């Protein structure tokens, strides 16, 4: 089981709800992924278009823990405000602190992330912070008492996979709270790799929503996370420079 704050999860795959072609595809993908945690965003409502679809209208959210993000925030203050709003609507079991500091890379602002996390922890939120793969920042976040660290594999939406497995391995090694690899996962291979490195879970969105067949990809990601986790527990074989025959070298039948 994956434990984050007071919550326990059998599934280690967290799924975002952005960019699906239709609400029906999203619903089916969520089901196929067997996720227990859904991420979404808070935005101004278009009050002049009451027919605007609600992406969660047809979904029974009872079976899920809700992890709204603070995306769009550029300061700690803005992130805290978004978290409070989500909480006021009863749509916030846990909060994903996401404070972007660079428009090109969408990399998080470490200072504001730290500040927002500190404030939200004080207010009693279950806080998961989206960070870069900075080892020291991850340590400082967990010293604050954060409930989970979410280092990015690579920038949001790029699908580049894990660009710095070295840093990620260090974050995982020093972690005293769960590490959920978030952002940049492109394929099942990436999700599996994150888990093999010892991550406790993976959060992804575009990798599923942007696949040719999102529902099939959702299932693939579920299996990849499970495979990676099992592989990590099993302990991989050593890497060697020279070949070693798998079959016995003695007892060969002679011509």
């Amino acid at each position, binding site marked *: 089981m994956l434990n984050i704050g007071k919550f326990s999860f059998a599934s280690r795959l967290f799924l*975002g*709800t*952005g*960019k*699906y072609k239709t609400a029906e595809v*999203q619903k089916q993908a969520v089901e196929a992924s067997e996720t227990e945690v859904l*991420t*979404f*965003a*808070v*935005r*101004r*409502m278009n*009050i*002049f278009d*009451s027919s605007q679809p*609600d*992406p*969660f209208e047809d979904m029974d959210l009872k079976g899920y823990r809700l992890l*709204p*993000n603070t*995306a769009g925030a550029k300061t700690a203050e803005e992130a805290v405000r978004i978290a*409070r*709003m*989500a909480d*006021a*609507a009863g*749509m916030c079991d846990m909060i994903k602190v996401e404070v972007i500091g660079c428009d090109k890379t969408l990399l998080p602002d470490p200072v504001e992330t730290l500040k927002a996390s500190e404030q939200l922890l004080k207010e009693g939120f279950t806080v998961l912070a989206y960070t870069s793969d900075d080892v020291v920042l991850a340590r400082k976040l967990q010293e604050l008492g954060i409930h989970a660290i979410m280092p990015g594999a690579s920038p*949001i939406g790029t699908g580049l996979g894990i660009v710095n497995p070295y840093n990620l391995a260090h974050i995982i090694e020093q972690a005293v709270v769960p590490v959920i690899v978030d*952002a940049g996962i492109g394929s099942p291979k990436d999700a599996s790799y994150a888990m093999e490195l010892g991550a406790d879970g993976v*959060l*992804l*969105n*575009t990798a599923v929503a942007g696949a040719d067949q999102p529902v099939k990809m959702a299932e693939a990601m579920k299996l990849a996370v499970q495979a990676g986790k099992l592989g990590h527990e099993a302990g991989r074989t050593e890497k060697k420079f020279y070949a070693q025959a798998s079959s016995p070298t003695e007892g060969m039948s002679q011509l």
Partner: protein
Amino acid sequence: MKLTINGEEQQIPETVESVEQLLAHFNVAHKKSVVEKNGEILTKPEQKESLLNENDRLEIVHFVGGG
């Protein structure tokens, strides 16, 4: 009555007196939303009691897909 809603000035009929009535006026009362009035988040019961005044600033937000 002049209000600023989601950053834009709007003229609202005087018959709309509370935040709850404002949501009904725009036909969005049934939707899951959060309302902030002059920087203060309002709970559902507060939306009923909270009366609108000239130049109030309101933010009406909802939940959308995201990762």
